[in-house]
């Protein structure tokens, strides 16, 4: 049975399905219980599955991840919500030193198969502490997987895969597109998910594989790598620039779908990488390095990065900070025009 869902509904449905299928799945975090989460992703789950299966926690991100480690060691599969990715840092020690390393240091005796959900990214006038994109702080940590969906269908399928995965998954949700795709044209009317094909979501169980990119548009002139909200911005920029670009939605950023990337860049010889995170040491740096190591002799132009500036995300300058379609289009043009 298919239904039309926005991202929040799709995520909710994924947790609902997994709570029903697996008694070892628990959902918890700040405000996720009775209220259903500040973005309402867990709405109704406590009522349906019981107080003990979906509940509020104290405001202590390090505490709730620590608890999830212990639960994982017992044999449960916690799905925890960090209210905003900007608030994940108090849990950074538990994530880096414990969650990511449990399997390795215990030689497989203990594992922490948890899913850490966190809304991330800008575009909502959230200021510097409700807009961050910290994905690169996790891709550097061996033992973690990092997943970022860009539409309802993928969101549900990937979240189910994450919950079933025996490794810990950092599951970052682009909050700007919870309720509708957003192409960066903030001055145009908002479009709901219902008009987008990826809002057609099976009501039951299904998975989207972790580690596989989606080619959203085939093209010859340039490869664009993006994830999350930026996928929609990129598609708009491609359309507006009239270029024949190949657009990859990475979906899983680590371990990334290296084969899809290499195949595309070898074909186009040019590449632009787009993310919202601050540029320096962002995930675009790793992508650039991987590509130039593998496609050096195919590259006809420098790989460009379009990214957030190396400043905090300032409240008043949402659209000057946000890497919108104009900045992407300009980079595309530079890249396509470049020749040595």
């Amino acid at each position, binding site marked *: 049975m298919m239904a039309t869902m926005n991202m929040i509904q799709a995520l909710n449905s994924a947790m609902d399905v997994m709570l029903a299928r697996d008694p070892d799945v628990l959902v918890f975090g700040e405000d996720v219980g*009775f209220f259903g989460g500040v973005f309402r992703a867990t709405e109704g789950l406590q009522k349906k599955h019981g107080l003990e299966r979906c509940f509020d926690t104290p405001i202590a991100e390090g505490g709730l991840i620590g608890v999830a480690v212990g639960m994982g060691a017992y044999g449960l599969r916690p799905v925890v919500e960090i209210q905003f990715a900007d608030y994940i840092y108090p849990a950074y020690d538990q994530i880096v030193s414990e969650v990511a390393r449990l399997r390795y240091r215990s030689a497989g005796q203990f594992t922490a198969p948890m899913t850490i959900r966190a809304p991330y990214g800008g575009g909502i006038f959230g200021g510097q502490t409700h807009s961050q994109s910290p994905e690169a702080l996790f891709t550097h940590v061996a033992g973690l997987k990092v997943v970022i969906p860009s539409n309802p269908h993928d969101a549900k399928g990937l979240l189910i895969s994450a919950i079933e995965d025996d490794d810990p998954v950092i599951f970052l949700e682009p909050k700007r597109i919870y309720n509708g795709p957003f192409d960066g044209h903030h001055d145009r009317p908002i479009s709901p998910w219902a008009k987008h094909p990826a809002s057609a979501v099976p009501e039951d169980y299904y998975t989207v594989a972790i580690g596989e990119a989606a080619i959203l548009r085939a093209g010859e002139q340039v490869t664009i790598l993006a994830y999350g909200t930026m996928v929609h911005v990129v598609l708009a920029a491609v359309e507006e620039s009239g270029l024949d670009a190949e657009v990859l939605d990475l979906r899983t950023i680590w371990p990334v779908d290296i084969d899809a990337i290499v195949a595309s860049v070898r074909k186009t010889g040019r590449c632009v990488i787009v993310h919202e995170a601050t540029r320096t040491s962002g995930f675009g740096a790793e992508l650039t390095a991987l590509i130039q190591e593998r496609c050096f002799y195919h590259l006809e132009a420098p790989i460009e990065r379009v990214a957030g500036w190396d400043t905090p995300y300032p409240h008043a300058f949402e659209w000057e900070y946000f890497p919108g379609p104009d900045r992407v289009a300009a980079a595309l043009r530079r890249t396509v025009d470049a020749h040595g």
Partner: protein
Amino acid sequence: MTATQRPTVAKATPARQASRPNALSLRIPEPRARPGEMLDFGNLRLSRGSAVERPAIDVQAHEIRDLAYGLIRVLDDDGQAVGPWAPALDTQSLRDGLRWMMLTRAYDERMYRAQRQGKTSFYMKCAGEEAVAVAQALALAPDDMCFPTYRQQGLLIARGYPLVEMMNQVLSNALDPLKGRQLPVLYSSRDYGVFTISGNLGTQFIQAVGWAMASAYKHDRRIAAAWIGDGSTAEGDFHHALTFASVYRAPVVLNVVNNQWAISSFHGIAGGGDSPFASRAIGYGLPALRVDGNDFLAVHAATAWAVERARANLGATLIEHVTYRAEGHSTSDDPSQYRPAGEAAGWPLGDPVARLSAHLVAIGEWSADRHEALRKELLETVRAAGKEAEAVGTLSTGSRPSVRTMFEDVYKDAPWHIREQRQQLGV
């Protein structure tokens, strides 16, 4: 004042039926009432004003452990100041306090509306909690350093920080002292002794201890004060603050503002059910005061005690202010989803503005007419300031800070990469 109270009957925690005899089960705490249910404040530990002793400031912490479980109150139901904690505040100070609380409320109402009108992105009121910040501002010296959360706007107001400046910040306009960088209400004023408010909960609590340690190290006389919400006490920073304050005997007043809710989570989720937040201090050998946070005089008296103690180099005090968040968490919140509608009105400790006003009336220094006149005056003050600020600009219209400033202050001097990025944006 406690009309809605009913006998204490603990609501049973629904627990999945244990499948085996003697099996363990998980407790998930729940509030006594949810939307549609009867109000129930039966677990609030109240004391009468005269019931709680006022020790000397050089008392040993372990001698006053009981104060963590009582409730320091001064104003009785007749509006009289009673008991050992009744402070010797002159009438002018009381009237100032009332004015600032009312100004805070009027300011909140205007800015809340401004957000609803699309003039800014976000706003947070402190309705019902005005006594905490305002009475404490009065008890602290003007150059003592404050490390507040987003809900102590009363500090800035009581210290005389210009309303227009506050509004400029909330509107992120061209005159915003923080250059449009911060979410509304995350003020900062070095000149008025208010530390830059963080979006990350809890961090300021230990920072205040560090400031106090610095002051002690420099043989200064200034002390620090910090605030944290009931929910946020669960963060590690809270524990760090109590630990460092105890170890280094830092001159700091540490305040827990227990307004019963942390967004949708009741105080029991933060661990306030089995033992009051004030009692956390006991284990660190720090004195704790639990105070009626809606009683202006009690808050002032408790704070003055802690301030005097800190200033005498006797170290930190933890104060729990028992109050109630009378409105939503923020403009993004809808509390009717998770708590009974009448809870604010039924709150047994009443409203701080009404109570201080009643006290002034009771001692013959105030009247309903003067109250109403003051209310109108403040409304006008706020309206004038609002006009002035909005004339400069709002988040959506008028003049904004220069985009160029977006690239400033990341470092003292912009390194090459920031300069390059500024040029890329063409500003």
